[in-house]
């Protein structure tokens, strides 16, 4: 599904920011009901995505090699 593909690409921070946006929008109660339910569904999906990303995350650390840290001759 298109939305799922979109969700895969969204970053954790983007998802979190979107959830915060939706919470505010729902709390303002301005949108039509159908839209509100759509937003809620989106937020639930993003919440699951965030939780999954956090749970599945494994810390990545890269140690720079001496070849990389050579400075270009100062200009």
């Amino acid at each position, binding site marked *: 599904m298109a939305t799922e593909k979109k969700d895969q690409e969204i970053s954790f921070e983007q998802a979190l920011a979107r959830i915060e946006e939706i919470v505010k929008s*729902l709390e303002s109660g301005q949108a039509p009901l159908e839209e509100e339910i759509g937003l809620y569904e989106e937020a639930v999906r993003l919440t699951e995505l965030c*939780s999954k990303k956090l749970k599945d995350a494994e810390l990545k650390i890269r140690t720079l090699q001496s070849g990389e*840290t050579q400075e270009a001759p100062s200009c």
Partner: protein
Amino acid sequence: MPVARNILTVGDLNQFVKSLLESNPYLGNLYVRGEISNFKNQYLTGHLYFSLKDAGGVVGAVMFASYASRLSFKPEDGMKVMAHGRVSLYPKTGQYQFYIDDMQPDGLGALYIAFNALKEKLEREGLFDPSRKKPIPYMPMHVGIVTSETGAVIQDMKNVFSRRFPLTQLTLYPSLVQGQGAAENLSRGIRYFNAHPELADVIIIGRGGGSIEDLWAFNDESLAREIAKSRIPVISAVGHETDFTICDFVADKRAPTPSAAAELAVPDQADLFANLQEYTTRMRNALKKSLDSRALALKRFAERPVLRSPAAAWNEKAMQLDHLQDRYRHALDAHMQMRQTGLRSILSRPVFQNPGAMISPGRDRLQSLSDRADQAMRSRISQRLQHADHLKKQLDALSPLGVLQRGYSLTTDSSGRVLTSVQNIRPGDKLTVSFRDGRAVAAVEQTEKTAGGKTSDGN
């Protein structure tokens, strides 16, 4: 005896010498090197009392608790120290004393003075100003670390990042952290991340605990300037809680230890999970509120009589009519009653009671008048009742229920629309036929138009 010209009290003398000592700028700000003896820690107040001595002599020394609490080592007898402070006199004993505000084990004396000199210089330049400090991002996805590749520090930091926010990508710039070339190496690390900002939303620079010489690279002036120049926020984490370096002052944030720096750099995933939970709760509440308010609006709408049932409007009219009839009947009864009571009271008067014959004709006449009035009233009421009945019959005839009562039926399509024409009906369509006492669902087998039938175009 000399003239008592310059006779002072002891107290005055001591005060005078004290003010002399305190007015000398050199004595107000100096370093003294010596060995601690007679060390006494006043546990109650926290003030330290001792002597500083060397081959040339002894001087009393005081270090008040507020300064003593900042010492990064434990002073004791026999220890050689370099102390900074001012000279004054204690009037109670008449002894002059060295009032110490800072102290380092000797041997570090030169470093210590250099440290203070650099600190003052950079401070004057404004490099430590709070207004220069860049905020640390709340959720850095990339953290650059400049420290030793070996040792516990990087391992400790990795553990903290794993526990708190494992989504962060760490990049380690391995650097010497002490000795020859360390300061330059650390500076290159800061430069490297500024040249590759995609690798670091925040930089942590640091090392584990050690002696003041071990930490010395972090007091380097060019490193301090490199940190001040960094466009990426820098967290400094050098040694232990009590160790302060120039790096700490110039960095955007000082962490007491490298592990603490990792804690400062990223949010805790436990908090993030809690936030997500809270958001979900808030959204549910908002949505529930929204649904409730709409359901209430709908309920109010549905409660309008015309929508409650198809016959409701008609029923109401019928009820009004019934009510009207009741009022008529009641009015009739009341009228009759009034008439009769009124009559009785007139007839019971003595004049009517006694010489009956005399007034009898009058009585008869009265009775007849009364009867006529009754008659007229009755017939008027009866007319109205008949009219009301007629109206009710008309309403009955108009009511859909009335029509069904008479053997007609009502046909609706699947969406509930009443069908008035054969047009638009196709074989196979499901129709609902409503009767007086129920409904039947029927399938259309075939349709045909009545010859000459008008197909009124409904919807």
